[in-house]
C-alpha cells in the first residue's frame, strides 16, 4: 500500500474539486475520524487519570495485574516465534513455487482472519474439554489445556497465525526469484541462500509481520476469553483483567491497565509506519537499480547493433 506513493496524484493541470468542496469533504472525513478514532483514544487516558496518578500507578502494582502482564508476555513470547517460522516457511512455499492446490492453501492460511474469535475458542473447548475423548485422555494423563496456559497459547496462535505469512507472501512475490536462483547456480547451499539472500531481503517485511502479530497476540480477547476460565492471578491476560475490573465498576483501574495496551498499539503503529516507509524505499531502490541496468543493456545492444552495420 505504501508502495503506491504519489504516482496517482494528479498534476497541477488536472481538474479537481472546487476549493469549497475540498474543504467540506476534508472536514467531513476528519470529523468522522475524530468521532470514531480520536475521541475513544483520548477517552482511555482521560478515564485512566480521572482519580489521579495515585490510582493509575496502583492499578499496575498489585499481584493480579502483574500476573496478567506476565501471562500476556509469556503467551506472546511463545506464539510469535511459532508464527515467524510458519510464516517464513509458508511464504517460501507460496511465493517461490507453483503447484496444484496453491489457491486452496492460501485460503486456508487466511481462514483464521474470517473465523470469529469466539468460534475459535469454542473449537478448542470442544477439542480439549472434559466432554471430549481427547480431553479426558489428556486429563487422565495430568495435562491441563483448557483454563490453563496451553489453552490460552493455542487460542492466541489460531487467531494470529496468518499475520507473518500474509505480510511476506506479496513481498516475496514482488521481489522475484532471480537473486536466489543466482545464489543456487553459483553453488550456495539452500541454507546459505536463505541466510545470506532471502532473509536480508525480507527482513523489514518480517519485522512488520512480527509487529502485527505481537500487537494482536497481546490484545486477543474473544478466543482467549472462552478458553481461559478467568482465574484471577492464574489465567487472566491483560485484556481479561481489564474486563474484570470494568465489570466490577473499578473504571479508573480498568482504563489505567487498558492504557498500557494503548501504548503498545501506538508503538506498533509507529513502527509499522516507519517500516512501510522503509519497505517502499527499498523497493524503489531495487526498481531504480533494475532500470539503470536495463538501460545499460539497451545501450550495449545498440552499440553492438551499430557495430554490425
Amino acid at each position, binding site marked *: 500500500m505504501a508502495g503506491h506513493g504519489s504516482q496517482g496524484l494528479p498534476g497541477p493541470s488536472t481538474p479537481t474539486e472546487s476549493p469549497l468542496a475540498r474543504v467540506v469533504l476534508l472536514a467531513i472525513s476528519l470529523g468522522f*475520524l475524530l468521532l470514531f478514532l480520536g475521541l475513544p483514544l483520548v477517552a482511555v487516558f482521560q478515564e485512566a487519570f480521572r482519580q489521579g496518578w495515585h490510582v493509575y500507578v496502583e492499578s499496575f502494582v498489585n499481584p493480579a495485574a502483574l500476573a496478567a502482564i506476565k501471562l500476556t508476555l509469556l503467551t506472546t513470547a511463545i506464539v510469535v516465534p511459532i508464527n515467524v517460522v510458519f510464516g517464513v516457511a509458508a511464504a517460501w512455499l507460496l511465493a517461490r513455487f507453483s503447484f496444484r492446490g496453491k489457491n486452496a492453501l492460501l485460503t486456508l492460511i487466511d481462514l483464521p482472519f474470517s473465523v470469529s*474469535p469466539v468460534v475459535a475458542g469454542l473449537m478448542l473447548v470442544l477439542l480439549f474439554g472434559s466432554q471430549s475423548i481427547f480431553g479426558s485422555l489428556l486429563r487422565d494423563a495430568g495435562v491441563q489445556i483448557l483454563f490453563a496456559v496451553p489453552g490460552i497459547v493455542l487460542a492466541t496462535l489460531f487467531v494470529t497465525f496468518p499475520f507473518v505469512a500474509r505480510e511476506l507472501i506479496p513481498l516475496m512475490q514482488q521481489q522475484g526469484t532471480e537473486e536466489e536462483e543466482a545464489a543456487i547456480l553459483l553453488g550456495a547451499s539452500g541454507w546459505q541462500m536463505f541466510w545470506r539472500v532471502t532473509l536480508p531481503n525480507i527482513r523489514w517485511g518480517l519485522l512488520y509481520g512480527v509487529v502485527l502479530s505481537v500487537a494482536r497476540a497481546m490484545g486477543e480477547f474473544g478466543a482467549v476469553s472462552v478458553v481461559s476460565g478467568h482465574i484471577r492471578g492464574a489465567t487472566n491476560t491483560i485484556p481479561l483483567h481489564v474486563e474484570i475490573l470494568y465489570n466490577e465498576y473499578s473504571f479508573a483501574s480498568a482504563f489505567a491497565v487498558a492504557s498500557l495496551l*494503548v501504548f503498545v498499539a501506538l508503538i506498533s503503529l509507529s513502527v509499522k509506519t516507519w517500516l512501510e516507509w522503509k519497505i517502499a524505499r527499498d523497493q524503489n531502490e531495487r526498481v531504480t537499480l533494475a532500470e539503470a541496468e536495463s538501460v545499460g543493456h539497451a545501450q550495449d545492444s545498440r552499440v553492438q547493433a551499430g557495430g554490425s552495420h
Partner: protein
Amino acid sequence: MSLRPRRLLPGFGLTLGYTLFCLSVVVILPMAVLLWKAGVYPTDQLWAAVSNARALASYRLTLGCAFAAAVLNTIFGTLVAWCLVRYPFPGRRFIDALVDLPFALPTAISGIALTAVYAPTGWVGQYLEMVGIRAAFTPIGITIALMFVGLPFVVRSVQPAVADLDPAVEEAAAILGASRWQTLSRVLAPQLVPAALTGFTMAFARGLGEYGSVIFIAGNMPMKTEITSLLIITRLEQFDYAGATAIGCVMLLGSFVLIFGVNGLQAWWLKRQGAA
C-alpha cells in the same frame, strides 16, 4: 520426459510438509472437531438450538448491525481514502497511520473506550441524548463498535484504487465538457466500485464475528441487544455444548460463504482489469 517441472530453488518438500503440518494442527483439526461434533448431537436438538427465537433475534441483530456498519464505512471510508490520497493537508501522514488504530488496538480496549465516549454521560453520548438518541446499550451502539473495527478494511482497500486512477481520464472528461460532479460520479466512482465492494465485504465479515468491542457497549439483553458470538458464550457457560456447537457451525458456515464471496469478487475484478 518428466511431467513435473524441475525446480531450481530448494525447500519445496520441506516447506510444503511443514506448512501442511502446522495448518492441520492449528486450523484444520479444531475446525474438523467443531463440524464432527455437530454430527454427533441429534439433529432436532441442533435445529432447536439454531432456530429458537433467541438465536433468530441474535442473527437479525448481528446481520443488521454488521450490514449497517459496513454500508456507513463504505461511504465514509471511501471519502477518507479519497481525502488521504488527493488532498495534501498538514498531518496527513499522521492521520493515515491513525486509520490502522482499530487493527492495532485490542478489541476489549476499543469496547470500553467507545462505551466511555458514547454512554449517556460520555463526550458524544450526552449530546446524542439531548436530541433523543440513546447510543450505548442499543443496536446503535453495536453499529458504532462495528464501524470502529471495520473502518480500516474499507480505507485500505480503496486507497490504492484511488492512487491508481489515471489523471489523463479525468482531464479527458473535463476537456470533453463534463462538470466535476459528472466526472466524479460517472467516470471515477465506477472505477472505485470493486475496491469499495471488497472493503465492504471484509468489514461486513469482520462485523459478523466481532465480540470484544461490542459486548461492553451492547447491553447484552437477550432478544434485544445480544449478538450471536455472545450467545455462543452464554450457551457454553450453561454447559449446553450442543447449542454452542450448533450456533458455532452457523457462524463458521457464514464465514465460508463470505470467503468465497471475497474470492469471487477479487477474481471478477482481476478479470475486469485484464479485459480493460
